[in-house]
C-alpha cells in the first residue's frame, strides 16, 4: 500500500521547514526517503544538481555521509562509543582529516555545553545530553541538509527548546536546509514554512478537521 503520493517538496539552503501530520501519516517515511535511508518505489530525489535517488548503494552511502545530517527522536547513539567518538563517527566514512574532525567535534560539544561529558558513554548521559551529542554528530560535516525526526520527542520542554533553537540557528546560518518532522505545535514556531502530510499528500494547509 503506497504511503506517499504526490509529494512535491523543494528545500533551499537556509530554510527551516516543519512537516506536521497525524501519527501514521507517513512523516517518518518521507524523512527516510529524503535521507536515502529507505529505497523508494518511484519518484525522484535531487540533492543540489545530483539525482541521488537513482544512485547505486555505494554512491548513496557517500551522499548520506557528506550531504545529509540526521537527528532522531531516540538519539541513536552507539552505546559502545563515548560521546566524542559518536560525534566523530560522522567524519569516519567521508574521509575527513581526523585531527581537523576532532577539533571541530570538540568545538561543537563545547558550544552545546557537553564537552565535559565527551568521554562518557551514552548510558551515562541524560536524554538532553544525548540529543545534544546527536545534534553535534548531525552537523559535524556541515551538511547542506539536516533531517530531524521528532528530535524533541524524548526531551523535557527546556531541552526541547534548546534543540529547536539550535536547528533554527543552523538554518539561519544560510548553509543548511533543515526539515523538521514534529507533532508538537511549539516545534513549528519559528519555522519558515509548515507543511502538512495527510493521506499521503503534502500540502501547505492543515487538513480539514473530521466532522
Amino acid at each position: 500500500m503506497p504511503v506517499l503520493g504526490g509529494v512535491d517538496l523543494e528545500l533551499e539552503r537556509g530554510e527551516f521547514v516543519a512537516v506536521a501530520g497525524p501519527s501514521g501519516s507517513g512523516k517518518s517515511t518521507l524523512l527516510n526517503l529524503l535521507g536515502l535511508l529507505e529505497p523508494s518505489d518511484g519518484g525522484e530525489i535531487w540533492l543540489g544538481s545530483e539525482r541521488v535517488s537513482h544512485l547505486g548503494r555505494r554512491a548513496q552511502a557517500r551522499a548520506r555521509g557528506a550531504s545529509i545530517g540526521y537527528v532522531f527522536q531516540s538519539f541513536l547513539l552507539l552505546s559502545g562509543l563515548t560521546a566524542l567518538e559518536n560525534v566523530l563517527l560522522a567524519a569516519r566514512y567521508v574521509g575527513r582529516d581526523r585531527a581537523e574532525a576532532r577539533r571541530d567535534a570538540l568545538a561543537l560539544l563545547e558550544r552545546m555545553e557537553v564537552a565535559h561529558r565527551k568521554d562518557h558513554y551514552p548510558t551515562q548521559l541524560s536524554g538532553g545530553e544525548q540529543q545534544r551529542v546527536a545534534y553535534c554528530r548531525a552537523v559535524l560535516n556541515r551538511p547542506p541538509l539536516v533531517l530531524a525526526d521528532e528530535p524533541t520527542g524524548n526531551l523535557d520542554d527546556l531541552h526541547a527548546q534548546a534543540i529547536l533553537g539550535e536547528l533554527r540557528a543552523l538554518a539561519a546560518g544560510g548553509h543548511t536546509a533543515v526539515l523538521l518532522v514534529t507533532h508538537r505545535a511549539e516545534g513549528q514556531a519559528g519555522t519558515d514554512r509548515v507543511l502538512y502530510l495527510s493521506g499521503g499528500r503534502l500540502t501547505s494547509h492543515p487538513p480539514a478537521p473530521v466532522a
Partner: protein
Amino acid sequence: MKLGDFLPRGYAFTVIGITVGMAGLVSLGAMAERITRFIDGGDRFVLGQISVAGEGMGMGTGFTAGGLLPAAKITEIAAVPGVSGVQAQVMLPFNTSTSSFLTLTQELIMGMDLSVPIPNRHYRELPVSSGRPLRSGDRRVTVLGADFAASRHLAAGGTVTLAGQEFSIVGILDKTFTAPDRFALVPIEDARELWLRRDPLLVQAFGAGSLRRGDLNTGAAVGWRDGEDPDALARRIQATVKGLNVTIPGELSKLLRQSTAFFSALLLGMGALGLLIGGLSLANTVTAAVFERIRDFGIKRALGATDLDLLGEVLGEGLRVSLWGGVSGVVLALAIGTAIDARLLRDGQQLFLFSPRLLTFALVFSVALGTLAAGYATLRIARLSPAEAIRRGT
C-alpha cells in the same frame, strides 16, 4: 595502547562464549593428541626392530612374551643373513602384582646389553633430558623414563629402589609419550641379578648348572641391514633358528593398530565432536553478536558507511574477538589440563598433550571460523536498508 583497547567494547560475553567453546575443543584435542602419540610411538617402536624371545610362555618378559632366550640362540640369530645386530634384553615388571601385568600402564625394568648399539631403527638412542645415558661398564645405575621419575619426584643424582636393590639415577629420559616413559633402564647384568632374586624357580635352574648368566635374557631386539625387508628377515630368522618366538614387525604393527582400533575410533569421535561443538559455539556466538548490533550498523550506514566499510569493520572486530576467545580458550584448556595432569602424574599418567600443532590449529580455526561467521552475518545485514536495520535493532 592498552591491552583492553584491542578488545572491542561490548564483546565480553561473546569472548566468554568463544573461550568456553575453544577450551572444550582444545581439551578434547589434547586428549586425542595424547592417545595418538602413544599409539604412534608404540607403532614406531615395533616397526623399528624385530623382537624375539625364546619359545614358550615365560612370565615377566614384557611385550616380547616368550621363554628364556639363551646366549647360543642370540649368536645364531646374529649369523642369519641380513641381521645387522642383536641386543639382548631383560624385561621385568617393576610391580609384580598381576593387576598391572601387561597393561598399557605397566612399568618395566629394562636391562640392556650396552656392549652393542641399540638396533631399533627408530630409536637409535634414547636421549636424556638430564644427566647422562647408560654406558657400557655401568653397574647399579639407572636411567628413568620421564613419567616413572616424575610420578616419584626422582631426579638425576638421586637413588631409587628397584626390586629391593638401590640404584643411582644417572639420567632421566626425554619424554617420548609412549612406553619408555615408564621404563627404568639398567645394565643387563643388573637386570639379570634382579631377576634371579625374584624368581626362585630360575635360581634352582641356575643352580643346577644348566644355565649361565649370559643365558638369562627375556628377549632380544634385532636390527636389519639397509635394503632388507624386515618382515622377510623375521620369517627367515624363524625358519633358520629353532625354538624362537619371532614377532613380524608388519604383523605386530597391524595387530597393534587392530587392538587400538577402539581408541582410534574414540579419537575420531572426540575430534569430530570437539570441532562440531567448538565450531558451532564459536560461529553461533559471533553471528549472534553481530546480529545484536544490527541497529549500530543501520546508524553507521546512515552516517555514510558503505557495505565494504561495514564488512571491513566487522571482519576486523570478528578477528579480534575470535583471537581473544581463541587465546583465552587455549589458556583455559591449558590451565585445566595442567591441573588434571598434575594430579594424574602421581600415578605416572598424563591425559593431555597440548602439542604446538594442536594449539596452532585451534587458534587458526577460531580466527577463521569467527571471521567467516562475522562476514556471513554482515552480508545478511547489508541487505537491509539503513532505516530497516535501525527499526529491527531498536
